[in-house]
């Protein structure tokens, strides 16, 4: 059975449609991220799941029971969910232990049980020694851990996270990504995670829903999302890419300056008419001499720009007779000079066909 089902959920604020027919199904224990640029509707979606906002259209069901619909919305306090907020929302008038105990007190657990569970969860997030501190005395990372403990201790049916790491500095953010995944592996709480940072989403999620202008562009596992983006937006938003416009003519797909046989592509049947392709910079191989013939297309070109970034080279190559500018990344020891004549090896199996706009 599914834990959380969103069916065609829309939300409008006046004339603005913040979320547009959003559908998603989460199985119990799954970790799904909502990823997108700011203003794409991901936080609005999260707040509808939490019950702070009612949908304008569509329904949200939890364990088979509809909790949100345009007419009636179960208030947040009745949903058995937890949420971690951008500001952490640690109550400054309560100690760490009191903060964590709040949810259990509301659930009227016996005192001894509360003490025991609060103590245990604080150990899990490595905050046991700070239980009697007030939040003002904690660092940002520590407050984050308190927020995690407070949300997890009640063993919610669904855990919601709203850009929880955006206020941390870079190093801490990296550490906390893994921490969040570790806690998920330990407690298996069904989780919806909102972020605009693709690395965060990639590290923590089972699946990622990429959102743009209120709509879901694609829902997939991190690897599939990167390797096979289905829309222009996803291809550009997750990592860097080259977008190539091709046209299917007979047995060939014709690009500006070169041609690739249609059967070389993984799903030749899907390619019809004008099609865009995404090709990652590191999927292109650069050669000084024409490489021996393979399934790949080989295109001569000229190197027009380069930058050395330590971990890799970042080259821009213009295929001969075109105005294209393809980005290619290579390992640090593969050095080419600007204006050098080079051959590009484009592997059709790495080229993801995009849906028409």
């Amino acid at each position: 059975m599914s834990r959380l089902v969103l069916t065609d959920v829309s939300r409008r604020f006046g004339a603005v449609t913040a979320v547009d027919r959003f559908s998603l199904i989460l199985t119990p224990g799954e970790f799904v991220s909502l990823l997108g640029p700011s203003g794409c509707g991901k936080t609005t979606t999260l707040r509808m799941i939490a019950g702070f906002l009612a949908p304008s259209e569509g329904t949200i069901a939890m364990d088979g029971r509809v909790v949100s619909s345009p007419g009636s919305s179960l208030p947040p306090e009745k949903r058995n969910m937890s949420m971690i907020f951008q500001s952490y929302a640690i109550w400054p008038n309560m100690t760490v232990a009191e903060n964590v105990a709040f949810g259990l007190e509301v659930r009227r657990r016996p005192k001894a049980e509360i003490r025991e569970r609060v103590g245990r969860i604080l150990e899990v997030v490595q905050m046991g020694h700070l239980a009697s501190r007030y939040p003002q005395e904690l660092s940002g990372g520590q407050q984050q851990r308190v927020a995690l403990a407070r949300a997890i201790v009640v063993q919610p049916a669904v855990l919601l996270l709203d850009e929880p790491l955006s206020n941390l500095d870079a190093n801490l953010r990296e550490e906390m990504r893994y921490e969040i995944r570790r806690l998920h592996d330990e407690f298996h709480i069904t989780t919806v995670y909102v972020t605009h940072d693709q690395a965060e989403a990639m590290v923590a999620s089972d699946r990622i829903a990429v959102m743009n202008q209120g709509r879901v562009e694609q829902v997939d596992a991190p690897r599939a999302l990167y390797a096979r983006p289905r829309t222009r937006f996803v291809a550009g938003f997750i990592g860097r890419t080259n977008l190539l416009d091709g046209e299917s003519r007979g047995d060939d797909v014709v690009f500006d300056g070169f041609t690739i046989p249609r059967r070389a592509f993984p799903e030749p049947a899907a390619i019809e008419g004008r099609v865009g392709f995404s090709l990652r910079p590191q999927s292109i191989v650069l050669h000084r001499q024409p490489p021996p013939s393979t399934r790949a297309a080989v295109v001569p070109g000229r190197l027009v720009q380069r930058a050395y970034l330590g971990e890799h080279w970042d080259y821009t190559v213009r295929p001969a007779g075109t105005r294209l500018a393809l980005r290619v990344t290579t390992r640090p020891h593969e050095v080419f000079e600007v204006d050098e004549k080079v051959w590009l090896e484009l592997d059709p199996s790495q080229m993801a066909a995009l849906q028409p706009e």
Partner: protein
Amino acid sequence: MASDRSLVVWLLLIALLLLLVINPLARLLWASFEHPDTGAFTLENYAAAYGRWRNVEALINSMIVGLSVAVVCTIFGVPMAWAVSRTDMPAKSLVWAAVLGTFIMPNYLGAVAWILMAGPNAGWLNRIYSALTGASAGPFNVYSMTGLVLVISCYSFPYMFVFTRSALELISSEMEDAASTLGAGALRTTLRVTLPLALPAIMGAFIVVFLEAIALFGSPALIALPARFQVMTTTLWQMFEFPPRVQVAAAYAMPLLLITVFLFWLQYRIIARKGFVALTGKGGERRLMHLGPWRWVMLGYCLLITSLSFFMPMAVILQAAFARAWGRGFSWDNVTLRNLRFVLFDQTATRMATLNTFVYAAAASLIALGLALAIAYIVARRLVPFGRVLTYVAMAPFVIPGIVLAIGFYAAYTAKPLVLYGTAWILILAFATRFLPIAYTNSDAALRSINPELEDAARILGGSRLLALRRVVAPLLQRGLAGAFILVFIPATRELSSAIFLYTTGTQVLSVLLFDKSDEGNFELLSSMGLILVAVTVAMVLLGFRLIGRDFLLRRTAT
């Protein structure tokens, strides 16, 4: 949200807001068009109000007083604000304390002090003048238009000071440096850069002071009436002498209301204009201007003005409050505690008025604060549609002169269905309404300082909205609300202009009693009553310092 049980509570509070603000205003407007006997629609009230030259003249006098006071306040307040905020003038904290002291004096107590200082013949200044020159009479007479303007200015210039200072504090030295590097000297920089940047604030204060002056009742009643001229507020008051002519008074008050609303709107527009970046951005580093020997001149100027507004008046009030007879001067055998004891314990009327003052003020503050907080919360959390409108309603009393509000209350609550006149409630509710805007701005600010996510966090963990309010919001608001309470309580203890229309026997407060007793000429008693108000205010202010910080009374929001 419809399922939220707290909705009933919100609707009740909104109803109360309508009862306090909208109903009196609506009844005021209605009364101005209502025939006193038949209740039919008529324009006669306006004819009666403005058909007499005496009444028109009072209106003209009010405008003269308002404009003169605004000009004098600019001359008083702007140089002081500049000296305190931008120069190396010595003894700034003394000047600051004196301005605060001026704020603490109720204007009518200031008027009493000035009667003691500049009353014809017996006033201290005249006696000193005679003693020095040997002349038989001194030149000072507080019972004149000049005297009235000076007295009101003394107690209104702090607005100018506060507005200007807030603006100057936001101008970074880099703006002045930019002028200096282009070759402008200190004087030119100040006149061409610094002051023009502060100009919107100064114009805003000019309007506020003007409105304050024309709406004032205490000082004009104490000074203009003996000097045999009238202003609008004293005329309105006389219309309430038995039998009260509410309808005519309502008609007469309409222009005052309209002028006030218009000018406040204008002031809002001037201040809100974003053209001057300096007033909106955060001030950068600021350095003080070195005045050289001129800094002593500036200090002299500041001390001269605060002597007129605070040091001398406070001295004569203290002397009179503790004197057997104030005219006998400063000597030990003239000192007595009899006056204070008489006011606080012996005489029933003053004892009761003292008690009433603080009970009513406390009740009004609590009501205003509770209502303001609830409204601010409803608006901030969008609990009802059209919440923004509630903000305007809660802020509306800000642009209603106290005296007009009182007439509205009188018109609304002397007749059925709801008769409050004759009870303490009409005073308490009028005070609460009058100072609702102060309570609202402070509640709103306190609420805004609390991230809504703190409340959301309590709800998602299973707490209801009311539990979240109780466990999270209320504890966090405590400090801010204590400050707001003080800011409402202080003006409520001294409020005269609305109380004078609404009190009856048994519900007098100190301000009313002080005014009532003023024609008996017992200045020792008046000073004692005033001193009690001042003492309580000082205690509240000190408490406010501890709770909120040194600046809380002289902030822009406090005015």
